[in-house]
């Protein structure tokens, strides 16, 4: 199945793209998507311990399952509001 990976801010720069369509096996989790991203763009690993994620515009945990067509977003620490 396919999911759309979205990266923001510095993570976007490290990933080299804002969006990327990724193929993952059935039963995959957000963590599996992150591992694929880190394989493709190793520089993102610098943020591995400081990343939040969202699936289809809702916060999700790394252990959450993903489904075909999902949008999986990875978020570095935030800095809005000022």
């Amino acid at each position, binding site marked *: 199945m396919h999911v759309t990976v979205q990266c*923001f801010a510095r993570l976007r*720069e490290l990933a080299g793209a804002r969006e990327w369509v990724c193929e993952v096996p059935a039963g995959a989790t957000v963590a599996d998507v992150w591992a694929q991203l880190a394989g493709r763009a190793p520089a993102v690993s610098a943020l591995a311990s400081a990343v*939040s994620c969202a699936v289809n515009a*809702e916060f999700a945990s790394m252990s959450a399952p993903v489904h075909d067509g999902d949008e999986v977003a990875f978020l570095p620490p*935030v800095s*809005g*509001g*000022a």
Partner: protein
Amino acid sequence: MSAAGLAIVYAPLSCDLVVAALERQARQVGEGCGAICTFAGIVRGTHTGRAVRFLEYEAHERLAVNVFQLIATEAAEHWPLSRLAIHHRVGRLLVGETSVLVAAAAAHRAESFQVCRYAIERVKQVAPIWKHEFFQDGERWVEGALADPANPLARQEALQRACT
């Protein structure tokens, strides 16, 4: 609490427009709208001593609006008769421009201050928005809080800062 306006915006923010829309909504509630507190976050000309050329804000827009709605829902648990608006601008901002505008309406002033302060604290903690600073001599991404809306300690801290 429902929302007069929870939005990611690509144009300059207007306090008067947000306040007028919020008042029209809040006047229907409880004792009516006697107080609106607003907070505007503004681009400063220097940061840690470096001269700022401009900032660029980036957001996960759909998630940000969902987070603003979550913040409004949280505020409603504490202040059920208040009303809240949150507008955050994205794109390039110059020194002196407003990046975020929070407005909180209530019948009386104490509650309007509390809701407004609570909301801006939560925006800073959990809204998926990023600030990219461009200086005369370089640039950097600002990275603050790991966004986790379920973290009860962060929410508790926001309530404390709201002077409840």
